[in-house]
């Protein structure tokens, strides 16, 4: 087992190096440069050259790449010039906020998605199935940023039940209750589409399992319907549901970008959008590398977990 984990970790190194090359190349190749972004209307060639020199951008590209890589290996991600603070501080803070939002949404969509899928499979063509199928179709069809704006209008502006935006109240904020009140709308808006997708796939996975012989056997033996559905069928269906959850986790993470903008959530997605627009090279590079590294580690963890369940994968 230890050997397998080590092998996977070693294989991640070229992947991460590849990511650093790609993100560095993209930031170098896109038109527009940080000095122009900083100076705006005042970007005379003379001023641009001065700013580039002070930001260390006048050095050859290859040299810049290795300086950046070398610094990063020692834990120095550089300083963001659009925020004038260390890149790593900003990325960690923002990533934390994204994890709270995306994590909550992921729990919500997994729970309600599977629940809805199981219920509609158990009641195939019944009123519950029809209602859920309709709701799921609706949920999948509504863009999350639009849903977010509508929720703000209804629950924050008209009813004033929940705060419009941000992660904590500016005054008297902090604490779990405050966080939950700020998290409710963005987490729901972000989870709706994924809930629909998971519900659909859980329904079909369950229907397939429910047609199988061992279910008939269980029922014939007099096992209660509730036990048949939740213990026998769902456990078997989970084999095909879990990979869907993995994919949806990725969608939730990337969908968080829009939701973070609509709800002014201080997450890493919004940070990257702002950083790209201001050509904040080090912040974009550091942010992307950090997120990519986390994603690679997450995948390794998933593979290791799967190999624990199914030893055949290890070979």
């Amino acid at each position, binding site marked *: 087992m230890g050997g397998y984990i080590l092998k996977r970790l070693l294989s991640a190194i070229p992947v991460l190096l590849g990511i650093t090359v790609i993100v560095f190349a993209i930031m170098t190749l*896109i*038109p*527009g*440069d940080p000095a*122009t*972004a*900083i*100076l*705006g*209307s*005042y*970007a*005379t*060639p*003379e*001023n641009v050259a*001065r*700013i580039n020199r*002070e*930001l260390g951008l006048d050095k050859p590209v290859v040299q810049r790449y290795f300086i950046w890589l070398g610094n990063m290996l020692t834990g120095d991600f550089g300083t963001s*010039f*659009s*925020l*004038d603070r260390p890149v790593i501080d*900003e990325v960690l*803070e*923002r990533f934390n906020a994204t994890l709270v939002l995306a994590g909550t949404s992921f729990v919500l969509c997994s729970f309600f998605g599977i*629940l809805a899928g199981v*219920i509609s499979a*158990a*009641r195939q063509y019944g009123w519950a199935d029809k209602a859920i199928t309709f709701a799921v179709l609706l949920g999948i069809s509504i863009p999350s940023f639009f849903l977010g704006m509508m929720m703000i*209008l209804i629950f*924050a*502006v008209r009813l*004033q*039940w*929940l*705060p*419009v*935006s*941000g*992660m904590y*109240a*500016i*005054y*008297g904020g902090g604490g779990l*209750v405050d966080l*939950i*009140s700020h998290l*409710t709308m963005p987490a729901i808006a972000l989870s709706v589409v994924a809930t629909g997708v998971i519900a659909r796939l859980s329904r079909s996975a369950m229907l397939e399992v429910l047609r199988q012989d061992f279910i008939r056997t269980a029922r014939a033996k007099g096992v209660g319907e*509730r036990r048949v*559905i939740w213990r026998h069928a769902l456990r078997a269906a989970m084999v095909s549901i879990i990979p869907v959850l993995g994919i949806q986790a990725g969608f939730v993470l990337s969908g968080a970008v829009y939701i973070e*903008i*609509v709800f*002014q959530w*201080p997450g890493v997605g*919004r940070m990257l959008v*702002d950083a790209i*627009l201001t*050509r904040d090279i080090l912040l974009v590079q550091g942010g992307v590398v950090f997120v990519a590294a986390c994603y690679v580690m997450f995948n390794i963890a998933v593979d290791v977990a799967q190999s624990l369940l199914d030893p055949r994968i290890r070979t």
Partner: protein
Amino acid sequence: MRLMQWTRRGALGAAAGAALALGFAFPAVAQTPPGVLVVGQIAEPKSLDPAVDTAVNDFRILMNVYDGLVRYKSGTLEVEPALAKSWEISEDGTENTFHLRDGVKFHDGTDFDAEAVKFNFDRMLNEDHPFYDTGPFPLAFFFSAIETVEVVDPLTVKFTLNAPYAPFLSNLAYPTGLIVSPAAVREHGSDFGRNPSGTGPFRFVEWRSNEAVVVEKNPDYWDGAPPLDAVVFRPITDSNTRTAEMLAGGIDLMVEVPPVSLSEFQNTDDYTVHEQAGPHVWFLILNAKEGPFADKRVRQAANYAVNKKALVNDVLEGTAEVAAGPTPPAFAWAHNDDLEPYPYDPEKARELIAAAGAEGAELTFYVTEGGSGMLDPVAMGTAIQADLEAVGFDVKIETYEWNTFLGEVNPGLEGKADMAEMAWMTNDPDTLPFLTLRTEAWPENGGFNSGYYSNPEVDRLLEEARVATDQARRAELYKKMQVIVHEDAPWVFVANWKQNAVTSDAVKNFQLEPSFFLLLDDVVKN
């Protein structure tokens, strides 16, 4: 049926949980506390070090924490004393001596004096200064005319310029000229931007990244303590979210209200909409070097063909006024009030085009997707395209993201395009024409005259105005320049933006300034 029982119980539980969470949430949706003004800003500030910042968004905070030697008189763009009580300018215009206010202290308790002034300018301009590395200082070139800064005595400081430079005083009133505490810079080094200390009406309390910058009343302010106890600046990038926060009572003052949201706040007593035209001009650069616009008649035709009133009223929903020439009316003393905007006259445009033989000319038009001061550039570009096609041009739009756009336009339009959108916001009537209309300002010389306009008379007037220290003489020169440029039509003069803001009914004594700065030292909130 047991399945249904389970889900009913589950649903009940979930509903109870949700109700509990919501119930707890209600107190969090309180109105903002009295005496504390919450301002909805458009972005997270970069830094609170005035020498480092370049964005209007950051200036809105800075102007309340720091003072400069001079400032703009309320409601104008004319300079009046601030930290300097008075000043003298030598006969030849190169020596500027300032007499400083006595007894002023920085928020960190240290004295404001001539040494502090010298420290500020040396830090920005002198590469050997021990704190030059707290930069880069992108706008330091505003003061590149400064040769030396001398401390004459603790309350007198003398700036020697390498040549007479008329915009010097108004550059000192700009945020780049705000005075920071040398002791705080020595203590915090490059972290000064997050631990600012100035002499202004509010002093810094805390900066919670991506949430808020909080400043509180400076009870010892030399110009009288402000009525507000504190101000909270919240970054809310999305304009719809900012509008929603204003409607929900989460902020008291909102800047840069999008035109489509203005109606939410008009015709109600709960809000006040403020408007103020500023030193902004939105125009189309025309390529006067090659193609159809090399002919003055075709450039004038474009000015007649574009329906500026419709742009301002329909596309911008009244958030701008029609521009008459290159100098915005906000520079009241330098603006030529006799100048009338080109009227909308497609017939006249067609005649001029026919006379120049440019019927059906193909035009490449650079449009940007956004950008500082660009208002609604895509919608405006499309409307302008329609107007120009109506008089017989064949207009092809190319759209670029803002920084890419600048990278295409600033090096000049030659060989690429016939026209491009552009907007400028400046603090002195000298800046824009000097950098964009002189022959010496063609892109190959490092200027922004991307359309290659050239008129020796305009060159002469601008050179002379820059070194004239008498304001009346400068005004005369600028007014002459505007008449010539209006006639030569190197640009299509389109709009002067009116900055807007909304305040809730709890906020009193607020007014927008033509400088587009946000000054909160007189504001009251109940």
